[in-house]
């Protein structure tokens, strides 16, 4: 099993550009999450999904959008990139319930200049 796969691993964007961070998992997990990690700030939840067709906002959703059309995929969309969105983005998944351990992807390192 590949687990949670994120692409791309690195990306540089210009201010105002848009992009989609891809995330896919092959563990048949119900829950999927997107976090951002800034230096010394831990992990902040952007959006999460309890299953296909259902998404909900986390702590820092502004400037981002998500969709969950299948159990496996949970892409994160940045519509108008801003320097404040420079961060490391992690996708994660968990099985059945939200209190179960989370499995993380390798992350996407995004710089916006």
């Amino acid at each position, binding site marked *: 099993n590949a687990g949670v796969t994120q692409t791309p691993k690195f990306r540089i964007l210009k201010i105002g550009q848009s992009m989609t961070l891809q995330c896919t998992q092959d563990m048949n997990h119900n829950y999927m*999450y997107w*976090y951002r990690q800034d230096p*010394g*700030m*831990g*992990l*902040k*939840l952007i959006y*999460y999904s309890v299953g296909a067709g259902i998404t909900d906002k*986390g702590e820092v959703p502004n400037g981002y959008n998500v969709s969950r059309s299948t159990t496996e995929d949970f892409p994160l969309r940045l519509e108008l990139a801003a320097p404040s969105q420079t961060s490391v983005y*992690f996708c*994660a998944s968990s099985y059945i319930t*939200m*209190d179960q*351990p*989370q*499995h*993380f*992807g*390798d*992350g996407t390192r995004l710089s916006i200049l």
Partner: protein
Amino acid sequence: GQQVMQIPQYQHVQEGEDFTTYCNSSTTLSNIQWYKQRPGGHPVFLIQLVKSGEVKKQKRLTFQFGEAKKNSSLHITATQTTDVGTYFCAGFQAGTALIFGKGTTLSVSS
């Protein structure tokens, strides 16, 4: 809202010394989880504590959950260079998402 505080933010030890990181929640938790993130890597789940006063061990790592289920600690005995990384606690309260602390970054010199 719910907060999870973790101290210290950084800790440097000599190889062979012990290390402890502490986690405190502003609210009672259903469970607490611990993760380790190596430099440049992603968080990896270590353990989950559910019961009041629970103590679990993994080799040199000892995890405790407080009696009131509002605090937790991770203790590493005789640190090794392989213990380097950032240790996160994450608290779960029913009806909310997992809340991560800011982490304790451990460095070890040989």
